[in-house]
């Protein structure tokens, strides 16, 4: 199936054409913001990472996420803003992103000589990049190039009955077209891992699924956490245990076989359904999947949420009509019609798939209209 997207030098395909202004370190946040705000068509993010004193594994993860994020096909060009003395060297991150062949620049505040000069240089560089980006046209691309990130947040007891299974249908449809989906949030597979392992393409993948779930569970126990893992809103929404939440959650992945298990923010090497090991926190999980190359995010919710992503459209799917009625400003699709008996899982699944195609062609999601762009990198404790 065909859609119109942006073809990148590394053969990947974007559904948006953003200039991303990315600080490599917390100290460059405001400089990045000032650059981003002056340029039409630019997005910027801020975060708390990058300085020093990270565990080694943590540094690797942050660096990989930043490079992956800048390499996402929805990013047409990238400006990395660094301070100069940080662990996350802006030039190294820029070089990592530059491997995709897209225009990348690093601006290092200490080298340039202060933030005002850095802002000025950033705006001038960005202006040239945007002139180039704006000249690019959407071209016919195959849907098999798409990676669909499957996310949920603010779940309730309806999620597992309406929104998640409908998303599973859409995910299976995309995979049927040769595309990929990423299922994430390992802590929300706890209690359902045996079902996912059964769907693994081979024993190695099955073992990996069991391994990451076991690891997440152990980690929680070690930290003295109550692994019932439910946010207060989940409980108020009628979910009783983590197992119940997980069994509903995994419906997002439909019925396709699991091809691969990835660590946080790695790029898939196979097509089809992928599991990525991410924490049970939606923004950190989305950030990882986008760093892995996902171009569109599907986000099921029961309680309603405004979360957006700076470089990828987020399609919000609501599990019940009551919340949809209240939070239409933030939600794109109402799967509550399934509960109301007005539609079937199959029909809403088709609707989500069509929305994925429309959004890939340029239709804006609610979070995009509001200009929302949340960003957060998960930092392992060890």
């Amino acid at each position, binding site marked *: 199936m065909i859609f*119109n997207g942006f073809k990148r030098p590394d053969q990947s395909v974007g559904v948006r054409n953003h200039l991303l202004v990315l600080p490599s370190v917390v100290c460059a946040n405001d400089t990045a913001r000032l650059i981003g705000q*002056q*340029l*039409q*068509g630019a997005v910027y993010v801020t975060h708390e990472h990058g300085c020093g004193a990270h565990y080694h594994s943590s540094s690797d993860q942050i660096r990989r996420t930043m490079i992956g994020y800048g390499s996402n096909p929805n990013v047409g060009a990238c400006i990395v803003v660094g301070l100069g003395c940080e662990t996350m060297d802006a030039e190294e991150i820029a070089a990592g992103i530059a491997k995709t062949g897209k225009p990348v620049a690093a601006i290092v505040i200490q080298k340039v000589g202060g933030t005002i000069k850095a802002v000025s240089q950033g*705006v*001038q560089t*960005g*202006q040239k990049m*945007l*002139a180039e980006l*704006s*000249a690019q*046209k959407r071209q016919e691309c195959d849907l098999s190039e798409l990676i669909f990130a499957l996310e949920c947040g603010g779940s309730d007891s309806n999620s597992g009955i309406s929104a998640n299974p409908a998303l599973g249908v859409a995910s299976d449809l995309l995979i049927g077209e040769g595309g990929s989906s990423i299922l994430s949030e390992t802590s929300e597979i706890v209690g359902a891992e045996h079902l996912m392992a059964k769907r693994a393409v081979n024993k190695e993948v099955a073992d990996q699924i069991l391994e990451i779930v076991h690891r997440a569970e152990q980690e929680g126990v070690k930290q003295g956490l109550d692994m019932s893992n439910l946010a207060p809103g989940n409980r108020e929404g009628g979910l009783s245990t983590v197992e119940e939440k997980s069994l509903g959650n995994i419906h997002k992945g439909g019925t396709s076989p699991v091809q691969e298990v990835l660590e946080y923010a790695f790029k898939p090497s196979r097509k089809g359904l992928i599991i990525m090991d991410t924490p049970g926190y939606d923004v950190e999980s989305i950030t990882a999947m986008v760093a892995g190359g996902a171009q569109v995010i599907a986000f099921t919710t029961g309680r309603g949420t405004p979360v957006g992503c700076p470089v990828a459209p987020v399609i919000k799917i609501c599990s019940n009509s009551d919340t949809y009625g209240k939070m239409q*400003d933030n939600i794109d699709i109402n799967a509550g019609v399934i509960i109301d008996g007005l539609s079937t899982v199959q029909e809403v699944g088709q609707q989500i798939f069509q929305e994925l195609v429309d959004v890939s*062609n*340029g*239709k*804006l999601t*609610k979070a*995009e*209209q*509001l*200009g929302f762009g949340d960003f957060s990198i998960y930092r392992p404790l060890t």
Partner: protein
Amino acid sequence: MFLGYKRPDGKAGIRNHVLILPVHRMVNSVAMQVEKMVRGTKISITTGEVGRSSKDRETIARTLLGLALNGNVAGVLVVGDNRYSCKELNHEEMAEIINSTGKPVELLDITESGGYYNAITSGARKAHKLVLEASYYRREPCELKDLTLGVKCGTSDPTSGVAGNPVVGKAFDLLVKAGGTAFFSETTEIIGAEDKLAKRCVNEKVQEKLLAAVSQIEAKAKATGEDIRNINPIPENIKAGITTLEEKSLGAITKSGSMPIRDVLKYGERPPGQGLYFIDGWMSSLSLPLGMAAAGANLFMYQLGGQGMPDLAPPMPAYSAGLITPMMYLTGNPRTCLKAEEFVDFCSGDIMEGKSSIEEMAEKLMESILKLASGTWTKTEIINLQDPVEFYLQDPCF
């Protein structure tokens, strides 16, 4: 051919904006909050309608409606309040007219929405809806006849009349011959060259309108009791070597090309059809681009001299058409081009260097225009160069 957006009324757009249009100055603040909350929207605030003559209020109304109907606009949120409505500026009527063209329009009345906060909420929702609809538009092949260009010259110097304006004039000829539409204006700056233009008017009626516009503005200039040379040419022109208003005018009119002048339009008035039009307007870089956008210009061309300009300065930082009509900077001065490379989209300075002809440059200019019309951003558009709007009001206020 270019890739543009086809609107329900048959017009073409080269951009796809949602316009937020407060029609009374008292509703600007609500409209500004809505604009901040919804990505992809642009706002044109209204100023100065209070204590004005009916003629000036009509000018404001004509300009606002013209902006709304510009092909670059995909949808419009009209913001008003019955308390402030007057016969010339009525938000409900304006929304009805826009609606009759098939363009998506939403109406926000502040009192009817239930006050400030409710109006912002309701306005943001309406704007969301319009942005969503706009995002369904795709660029399609359009013909030159669908394109409307406006031009103004500024910081004029002696290259303007030799290598800058004549290139624009030739490009206008190409556009008009292909059935497109072109605007030029600046009534003060045809003084001394009006006879040449009068000969090109399509009939006597248009000729009379043109000469009347010139004699009115000349009479106004004389009524000041001042030497026009303290007013126009402006000091920058004189520093660059332009000596008199007549010299400036003779250089300026070359930007109109050689096609017949179909009509003389009021500021902000939409033309009755395609072709070349003279707009009776004022040279201000804030008011003129706005008036041309209201008349339907898709792209506004700012032909620069720039001889006296300091290095790296934006050639003309006070500028307003970026609202919905992108501005293209062009110059025939190779020195300006070097000094302001970050702002100038097209340079015909090769003519001054003896390396190219006006005809060759005009062909290149058309190519460059069609790229911008197909979606490439102008250099000033990217950095959001945008001053507050300024309507061209001619009567005193009380």
